[in-house]
């Protein structure tokens, strides 16, 4: 039997089931997104004040405003929370029951991630709309539909990249008892290097070569830069190329670690 169409069908059913579950607590998503959007708003106000009072930043008000308004939607769309859950499923042996099913446990996490994205999108879009309206004077409008398409593609790639990095870290639970410290460390590093706290354009010039090419830039900052920044077509293409490259590298790595982990897996409670 062809596996790809079958897996897609399973994925569709499981996503629908997850969405139905998420609908039980609808209000939660609004609060989650209000929390998600509050830190970018704080940063936005701070940097605008700095700019208005004479700080000589390498980027202008348009860039800053567009960056922080779009930041929460991109961090939301590319985030994943699977590391903790997957690691505990491996450690506590919940994986065993999935190994006899005709679909991978990972597919369940994809479905969970997709459903969570749908719920969050409904909660977040109105908030972003209000923000956009409030700051519309200094928002950058993407130059032409091609930028919008690139923005969407880049968000999708960034989402896949984050997801594979998370699988990679969670899979280490096959050999390690506790990956939570590693997970925390990854979150902290990613927060700085992905541009979720401060736009990467504001990083000092001596760090440029490293900052611009490391993988975390392609998990958040790059998609935002497509709309906010003034990337040339050449920079856009190399950026997307880099992003694809990182997706491939981390995809292959995660695949290798996961499959060798499955072979090393000695089930608990089975």
């Amino acid at each position: 039997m062809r596996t790809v169409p079958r897996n897609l069908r399973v994925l569709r059913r499981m996503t629908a089931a997850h969405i139905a579950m998420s609908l039980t607590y609808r209000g939660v998503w609004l609060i989650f997104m209000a929390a998600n959007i509050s830190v970018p708003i704080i940063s936005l106000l701070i940097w605008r004040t700095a700019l208005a009072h004479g700080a000589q930043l390498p980027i202008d008000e348009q860039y800053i405003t567009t960056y922080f308004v779009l930041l929460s939607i991109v961090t939301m769309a590319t985030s994943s929370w699977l590391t903790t859950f997957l690691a505990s499923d491996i450690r506590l042996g919940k994986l065993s029951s999935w190994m006899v099913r005709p679909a991978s446990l990972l597919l369940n996490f994809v479905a969970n991630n997709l459903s969570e994205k749908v719920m969050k999108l409904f909660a977040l879009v109105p908030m972003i709309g209000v923000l956009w309206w409030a700051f519309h004077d200094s928002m950058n409008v993407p130059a032409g539909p091609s930028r919008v398409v690139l923005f969407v593609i880049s968000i999708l790639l960034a989402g896949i990249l984050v997801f594979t990095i998370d699988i990679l870290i969670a899979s280490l639970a096959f050999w390690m008892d506790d990956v939570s410290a590693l997970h925390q460390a990854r979150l902290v590093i990613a927060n700085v290097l992905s541009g979720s706290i401060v736009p990467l354009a504001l990083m000092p010039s001596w760090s440029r070569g490293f900052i611009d090419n490391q993988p975390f830039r392609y998990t958040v900052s790059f998609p935002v830069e497509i709309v906010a920044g003034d990337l040339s077509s050449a920079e856009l293409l190399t950026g997307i190329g880099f992003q694809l490259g990182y997706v491939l590298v981390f995809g292959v790595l995660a695949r290798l670690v996961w499959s060798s982990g499955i072979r090393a897996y000695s089930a608990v409670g089975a």
Partner: protein
Amino acid sequence: MTTRTQTYAEPRRPLDRTWFHRQERHLRLWRRFLSQAIVRETHYRAHFVTTLIVGLVRLGLALVPILLLYGYTDDVRGWSQAEVITLVGLFQVVTGVLATFVAPNLMRMTTYITEGELDGVLVRPVSSQFYLTLRWINVAELSNVASGLLMVIFGLVRSGISPNALEILQAVMLVACGTVLLATVWCAMSFTAFWLQSVNPIAFLYNNLLESGRYPLVFFPAGVRAFLTFAFPVAFASTFPAQALRGDLGWLQVAEGVGLTVVAIVLVRAQWRYGLRSYASASS
């Protein structure tokens, strides 16, 4: 000669003779909570080290925007980098105290209400609000208070400010008000569990809003400033004490802080009583 057996239905001597005895009994109880928490902490030394490291990393992360910002300018609306470092240190002290004494309790609010654990508290001879807000103490978080104090001293030395005793007193009073104010706001948000059941996402929202306390109030537009002073009062926990240390704050603002704190405590007490009436036990 028969001794008469007493039953619970008969009038007995009340537990506390006066209001002061009642407060004193609760204080004694809290001291027991604290010594128990310290004993527990000695059993989990790795937890102490992890809390310390996580706290330091968080602090470093909070400094990233400030260090970058002051790479491009020396002064933002009358605040130098060293003064902002003092402010971040003061705020670290406040959040450290909250994480030690209040957070471990409010994080349990959802289970208290959805699993009916509150039942067990209500039958005890103790103020239920006191017990739910202050029962658990996370001693390891005090390390963040220490790192905050070090940062305050570092910032003061760097900016060459030497506050006199009165200015220090003002700052201490404002930090105390700020801590209580933020605690009451968090309580008010958590006590909505009586009506909403699950309040875990509310803790997440609260913690994210708390990030605004790491910047001087004047960095925000006027409307937001009012919000951060009266509705979500981080100003009392960072900006005002930092201004007091610089010596440009009058006693009027200290009095304002004390007044606001009293009002907040009265309000959250009323909210608790009102919420308790709508509590319909989950276990019986």
